[in-house]
């Protein structure tokens, strides 16, 4: 959730809500294909990429070309993918940097960056072309353990709720913030993050009770 607060001092609640949008995009030839097939294809691609050599290699051109074709077919906007890749890039770099302390460090470093980006791109393409609830339906049919599915469903369900809540809190803070000094703004932001954490814990408790009321064990 801290990513929610990563913006500058100006309120960009609406933009953030759009960033959090997990729904699939506008219709394309890929949207008509069954969710199960798309999920299977995505998993094959991810496993294939993960098993590729641990050095920059022409082999990476195969999944890259497949993804490029699917990208075109799926009509996924560059801005959609660019924003999301930017969000995960620091994590990818942090992991890749660790490989610099090993033998053949540079080759592994570059391979880790290429592999991770291709895998994330695959998942973004899947998310763009397949509604999340359809992916959950397929996973349920595949008998993925129920606690895992519930966690995924709850995450999907409550991201917009938390985003709205943080937006409301930011607006309320902004209406009583009379300084544009960066230190004041960051201090306010830290307060909002702490409050949101406490509210999230409270809400989690209420959600758990509501689930129990309907027979959850």
């Amino acid at each position, binding site marked *: 959730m801290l990513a929610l607060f990563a913006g500058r001092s100006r309120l960009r609640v609406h933009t953030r809500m759009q960033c959090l949008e997990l729904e699939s995009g506008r219709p394309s030839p890929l949207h008509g294909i069954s969710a199960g097939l798309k999920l299977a294809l995505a998993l094959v691609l991810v496993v294939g990429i993960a098993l590729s050599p641990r050095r920059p290699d022409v082999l990476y051109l195969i999944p890259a070309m497949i993804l490029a074709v699917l990208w075109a077919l799926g009509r996924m906007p560059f801005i959609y993918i660019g924003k999301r890749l930017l969000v995960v890039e620091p994590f990818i770099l942090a992991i890749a940097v660790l490989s610099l302390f090993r033998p053949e460090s540079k080759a592994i470093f570059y391979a880790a960056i290429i592999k991770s980006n291709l895998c994330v791109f695959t998942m973004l393409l899947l998310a763009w072309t397949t509604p999340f609830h359809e992916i*959950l339906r397929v996973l349920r049919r595949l008998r993925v353990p129920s606690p895992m599915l519930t966690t995924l469903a709850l995450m999907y369900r409550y991201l*917009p709720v938390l985003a709205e809540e943080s937006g409301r809190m930011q607006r309320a803070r902004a209406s009583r913030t009379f300084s544009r000094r960066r230190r004041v703004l960051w201090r306010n932001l830290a307060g909002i993050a702490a409050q949101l954490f406490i509210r999230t814990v409270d809400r989690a408790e209420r959600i758990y*009770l509501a689930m129990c009321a309907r027979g959850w064990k």
Partner: protein
Amino acid sequence: MKPTIEVSHLSYDYPGGQRALDDISFAVESGECVGVLGPNGAGKSTLLLHLNGLLPEHPPKEPRIWVENEPLTVKALDLVRQRVGLLFQDPDDQLISATVFEDVSFGPRQLGVNGPYLKSLVVSSLRMVGLDGFEDRQPHRLSHGEKRRVCLAGVLACKPSVLVLDEPTSDLDPRGRREIKKLLQCLPGAKIIATHDLELVVDLCSRVLLLDQGRLVKEGPTVPILADEPLMLAHGLEKPHVLLHRHPHG
């Protein structure tokens, strides 16, 4: 007639030691609609959580609540939760799934219902609350009133014999309020409604329980209690507009 819900000498302390419910006893008959009134912090929501077995965390060995003559014990917890349908105050706490269908089917799934019967159950529950065709809608795209009705459909899908509703009309616009009120009037079975919406209580409930500081201070027919201005003011409430010109005993 045997009561649908019977509560006998129920007390409860919050983990901090503060008394939340103090020696509460009452009964609700089958088909009866009872309003639970009181100021904020009176213990209304805490009482409702007890009726569903959500509080205390471990039900006592000696039961204090009976649902259709079944004592609320650890053994009977699942049965009681199926019989007592609880609607929470904030629909966002109750709507946990990615689609309306998934959410309404959540309760029946826990009861082992699956396949075509589950589908027909979801469809009929949504029809009951006037939301035909909402199966594939996503909860975060619904209005507040629609969310509340989906929650109600999720509760009705478990086929409860008692409906327990916590502030069913809070945060609703007049149209939403009207729709929920009309809906509740049509639903069969006993209903217990905790609310500050006194006009709703006048329209729906034949009897009220007035709570304050965890104690049941008054119990009886709706109109005489709500029309008793000194009593209402003494417990943080107001005489509702519809009863402004009515004397408590006249």
